[in-house]
């Protein structure tokens, strides 16, 4: 084997850990958890192994999205501190391997979902992968500050997929769960993008703080929080959940609203002074976990 090829790190076979890193396992937890909760909130539950397979497919689909996203954004990732050490920008993997891995994982997850559960769930999984890759990553993200607003739909699919895997149909509750995540995504990501905006600006990604400014983004966070709170509480008055969910959702959402108001009132421009933004970002992750956990608890608790 020629020495020149071997001295290029990308010519070495990639380490399996780099393939794992390509799937962004750290951001997969929320997708898997909301998918699982969507399934557990359904009126009928699938056999354990089929339920496990459905959630595995959601995780694999999310992994495929991560891999294809990193393949497409290799140039952008190389410009951001946060992402420069990923396998592709760091040169530890050949781009074609990442592309094949991503496509293979996507096709495998959809086929397995269809064979193990039903083809509605498989179609939804395919739609979420295609939406994330083509609508969000390729089309919206590099072009418009509204990337997160519309792109949030991609991350909102898992509870819908979980429900469809369990029941083979749609209903009002999973659509509301979709709406909750869809409306939660902008405040969540904009809080993050406020204190890492220099990274996005360096990479030329038109995130809202880069395009519209810090003050406007803070206002938008508060504005988007209002419909999110309404969607989060809505299942209770609509009779789709019990009082446990309703009360917990109201309390959790109130805290979210207070933190969003603190962000809107902050005037700092330096990331070091953006404690309200950091608090809101951290709380937003907890909020979604807690809200979905309470939804499942409400379904199984006897009162």
């Amino acid at each position, binding site marked *: *084997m020629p*020495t020149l090829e*071997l*001295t290029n790190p990308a010519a*070495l*076979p*990639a*380490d*399996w850990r780099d393939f794992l890193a390509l799937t962004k396992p750290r951001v997969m937890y929320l997708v898997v958890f909301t998918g699982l909760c969507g399934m557990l909130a359904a009126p009928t539950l699938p*056999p*354990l*192994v*089929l339920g496990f*397979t459905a959630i*595995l497919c959601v995780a694999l689909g999310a992994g495929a999205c991560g891999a294809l996203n990193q393949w497409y954004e290799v140039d952008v990732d190389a410009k951001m501190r946060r992402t420069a050490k990923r396998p592709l920008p760091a040169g530890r993997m050949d781009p074609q391997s990442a592309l094949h891995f991503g496509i293979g994982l996507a096709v495998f997850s959809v086929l397995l979902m269809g*064979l*193990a559960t039903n083809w509605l769930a498989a179609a939804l999984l395919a739609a979420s992968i295609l939406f994330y890759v083509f609508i969000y990553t390729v089309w919206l993200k590099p072009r418009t500050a509204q990337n997160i607003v519309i792109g949030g739909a991609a991350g909102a699919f898992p509870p819908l997929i979980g429900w469809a895997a369990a029941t083979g149909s749609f209903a009002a509750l999973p659509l509301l769960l979709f709406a909750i995540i869809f409306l939660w995504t902008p405040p969540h990501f904009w809080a993050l993008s406020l204190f890492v905006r220099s990274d996005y600006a360096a990479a030329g990604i038109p995130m809202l703080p880069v395009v519209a400014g810090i003050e406007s983004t803070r206002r938008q966070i508060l504005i988007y929080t209002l419909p999110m709170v309404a969607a989060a509480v809505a299942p209770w008055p609509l009779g789709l959940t019990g009082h446990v969910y309703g009360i917990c959702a109201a309390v959790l959402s109130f805290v979210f609203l207070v933190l969003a108001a603190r962000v809107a009132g902050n005037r700092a421009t330096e990331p070091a002074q953006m404690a309200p933004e950091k608090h809101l970002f951290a709380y937003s992750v907890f909020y979604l976990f807690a809200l979905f956990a309470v939804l499942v608890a409400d379904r199984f608790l006897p009162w």
Partner: protein
Amino acid sequence: MVRQEDEIIRKRQRERARVTALLLGAFVVLLFFITIAKTGVNW
């Protein structure tokens, strides 16, 4: 230099083969249980 790189390549190939074998084994087991669940056999 070449020898060292050869060793790295072999090591990675071995590790990847092991991980692939494990994943394939897990997939076969999963398919078995999916088949059992789909056929509705109660154990």
